[in-house]
């Protein structure tokens, strides 16, 4: 397929300036320049992108419009129709979500004596965890220490991190890697067993562990295999649509929806762990996303309705280099390593406009400025804009064959669509990558609602306002394990009282009192990518997301 004529014309200019650019180094921005660029162009600073939420524990706080839409949406189910005197499942610990955090939580809860049920929206392992390529951080080398790791984490998070959570993260990190080693995760090692570790954005020591460029997949498939071996029951295609509270306002179960048969099932559980991941599929401010199909903020909605507070929801991580062409894979991640190996960012005229290894937020803002205010972006046939990532430079600098050797997954991705990134530059634009904030937890994953725990990307505070690469794969393992252990203990000591959906009724009343119309329902469960022409033909059904 390769590129259309219009884009090839710009590629010619890129090729012409390459020789000059090989010598050229764009200076790093001063703190003032950075500030100006971020305020002018980073989506987080766009006042039109957010608004205060009108109901619930965070009433008055600014959050992205797309999230507020969901927090201000009505329940999917009619609470009065559920008879909660009997249950389809009765367990000690219910784990919601089959990603890395959910699998780790289920394993540890079972190890600590609990009778566990895991429910998940798609298949076990259909999750952001499966997609992580880069790596996982842990301070396990002699010249490094958890204390240095701590400093990197809070500096990266702009000092908004919750100290207890960061301590848990960095102190448990080596334990997590060791646990993986015992489970048989194939980390990259030297022949003597020493872990091969490299830098990631914002690390002061080389502590990024990897399993080739399939790190998340390798961890996820191993944890999944172990969940299966230990015969932990799990239900797929069964998202939770509402939590249950007992007469003492403790969390004691959930309602799930079978996406195949459309039935609802009632689960009673002494403790519940939310591990539902992030919100990339909300396409905040219209951005494409790197996230998996089910990243729709369901956990935030569920927890918010039972009274949990959310933290830093206005801090969104955009990865500067998402795919902008070809259309088929728009939004997918182009790993930081491509820039690390020498590919520069250049505009339509073939000129550099930002140092390629500034922090993620700064590079993203620079690309957005180039494509908007300066109007020097490259337009694709579908009207999307982007800038070039001049990948052929990698081979000029490091020798032919480097790309296929060092970036096989990346090369395959473009090659599938007829683009040889070793010969031609690739087009890129920022993409929605990570939910920095989330549900407030303590260092054991406990929320303010007794019996309710949260782990992984759904939680907030670990990473402050900005997560560093390699710390979220770590986060899901550290807090998944901790929540699993604590929930098992909690389940031993506590009984569930009389369960109800009264909180859901109250929430609906609050919405009504705030003058909010019944236009949407939540949780969203799955995004809907059908065309308006198709949706119009569905008149006659409710047309409110997945029916």
């Amino acid at each position, binding site marked *: *397929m390769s590129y259309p004529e219009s884009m090839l014309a710009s590629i010619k200019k890129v090729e012409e300036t390459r020789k000059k650019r090989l010598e050229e180094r764009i200076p790093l921005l001063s703190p003032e320049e950075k500030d100006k660029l971020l305020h002018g162009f980073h989506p987080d600073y766009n006042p039109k992108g957010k608004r205060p939420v009108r109901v619930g524990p965070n009433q008055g706080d600014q959050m992205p419009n797309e999230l507020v839409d969901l927090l201000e949406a009505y329940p999917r189910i009619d609470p009065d129709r559920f008879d909660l005197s009997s249950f389809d499942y009765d367990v000690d610990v219910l784990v919601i979500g089959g990603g890395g955090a959910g699998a780790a939580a289920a394993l540890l809860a079972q190890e600590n004596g609990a009778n566990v049920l895991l429910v998940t929206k*798609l*298949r076990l392992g*259909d999750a952001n965890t*499966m*997609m992580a390529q880069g790596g996982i951080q842990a301070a*396990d080398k*002699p010249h490094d*220490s*958890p*204390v240095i790791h*701590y*400093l*990197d984490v*809070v*500096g990266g998070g702009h*000092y908004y991190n919750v100290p*207890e959570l*960061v*301590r848990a993260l960095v*102190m448990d990190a*080596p*334990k997590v*890697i*060791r646990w993986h080693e*015992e*489970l*048989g995760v*194939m*980390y990259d*090692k030297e022949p003597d*067993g*020493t*872990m091969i570790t490299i830098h990631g954005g914002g690390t*002061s020591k080389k502590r990024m562990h990897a399993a080739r460029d399939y790190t998340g*997949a390798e961890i996820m*498939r*191993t944890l999944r*295999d172990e969940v*299966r*071996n230990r015969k932990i029951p799990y239900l797929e*295609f069964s998202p939770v649509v509402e939590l249950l509270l007992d007469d003492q306002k403790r969390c004691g179960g959930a309602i799930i929806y079978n*996406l195949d048969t459309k039935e609802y099932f009632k689960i009673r559980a002494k403790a519940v762990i939310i591990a539902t991941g992030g919100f990339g599929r909300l396409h905040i401010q219209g951005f494409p996303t*790197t996230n*998996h*199909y*089910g990243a729709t903020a369901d956990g935030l909605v569920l927890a918010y309705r039972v009274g949990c507070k959310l933290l830093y929801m206005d801090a969104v991580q955009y990865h500067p280099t998402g795919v902008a062409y*070809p*259309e*088929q*894979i728009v939004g997918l*991640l182009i790993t930081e390593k491509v820039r690390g190996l020498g590919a520069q960012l250049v505009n339509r005229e073939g000129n550099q406009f930002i140092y390629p290894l500034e922090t993620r937020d700064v590079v993203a803002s620079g690309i957005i400025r180039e494509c908007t205010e300066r109007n020097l972006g490259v337009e694709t046939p579908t009207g999307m804009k982007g800038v070039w990532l001049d990948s052929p430079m990698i081979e000029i600098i490091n020798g032919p064959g480097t790309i296929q050797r060092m970036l*096989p*997954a990346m090369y395959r991705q473009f090659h*599938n669509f007829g683009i040889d990134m070793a010969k031609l530059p690739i087009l890129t634009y920022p993409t929605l990558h990570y939910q920095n904030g989330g549900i407030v937890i303590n260092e054991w994953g406990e929320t303010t609602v007794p019996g309710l725990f949260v782990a992984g990307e759904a939680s907030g505070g670990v990473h402050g306002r900005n997560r560093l690469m390699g710390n979220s794969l770590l986060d899901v393992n550290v807090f998944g394990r901790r929540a699993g252990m604590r929930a098992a203990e909690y389940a031993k000591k506590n009984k569930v009282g009389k369960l109800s959906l009264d909180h859901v009724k109250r929430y609906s009343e609050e919405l009504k009192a705030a003058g909010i119309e019944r236009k949407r329902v939540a949780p969203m469960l*799955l995004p809907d*990518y*059908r065309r308006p022409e*198709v949706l119009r033909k569905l008149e006659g059904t409710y047309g409110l997301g*997945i029916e």
Partner: protein
Amino acid sequence: MEMVKISIMGQWHEVPASLTIQKALEYAGYQLVRGCGCRGGFCGACATVYRTEGDYRLKVGLACQTIVEDGMYLTLLPFYPAQRADYDIDKLEPTYETIISIYPEVLRCVGCNTCTKVCPQDIDVMEYIACAKRGDIAKLADLSFDCVMCGLCASKCPAEIAQYNVAILARRLYGKYLAPKAKHLADRVKEIEEGKFDREIEAMMQKSEDELKKLYAAREIEP
């Protein structure tokens, strides 16, 4: 916009020629529930089987990574019933006997190479099954590493082997038993358990933002 005709499980639709099979399904009016996970070639949820008109050959691909073709008729294969054994990884030995006792069917491989031809990740599947037959666990683990467990190889195997389940057993045996252990890792875990860093971390937690900023700026960056 250039359009092509494709048949989705027998119903013909006109869709833009540039779409992946996954996006073409959505364009045609499907809200996917099954057969869609990561949308990026990592999870193996979207195995698809198709033919093109006038060609007897059966083709396969990942729906999120394959572009539609005119005259393509297809079905998703979102689930494939494959044999998978449960085992206790702590009680196994990394040997030929282990693999053969858990998955004896690998010995039935007839060397037809269909699995290799069908693999969307370009893995030499037949060769890794040959490794299983020889008990070469290290090579099996290495060769199968990029497997996304899509199930396509198993769907076409005349010997009814679920290759990818054999592969993950081998990778876990390799990672746990054959790969040398990281000594620095065990040492660090021990130090943490002995409380070596407790005081320093506590002190860090008490520091003001200004103090942290100074320490952060003064970090020594490993070259």
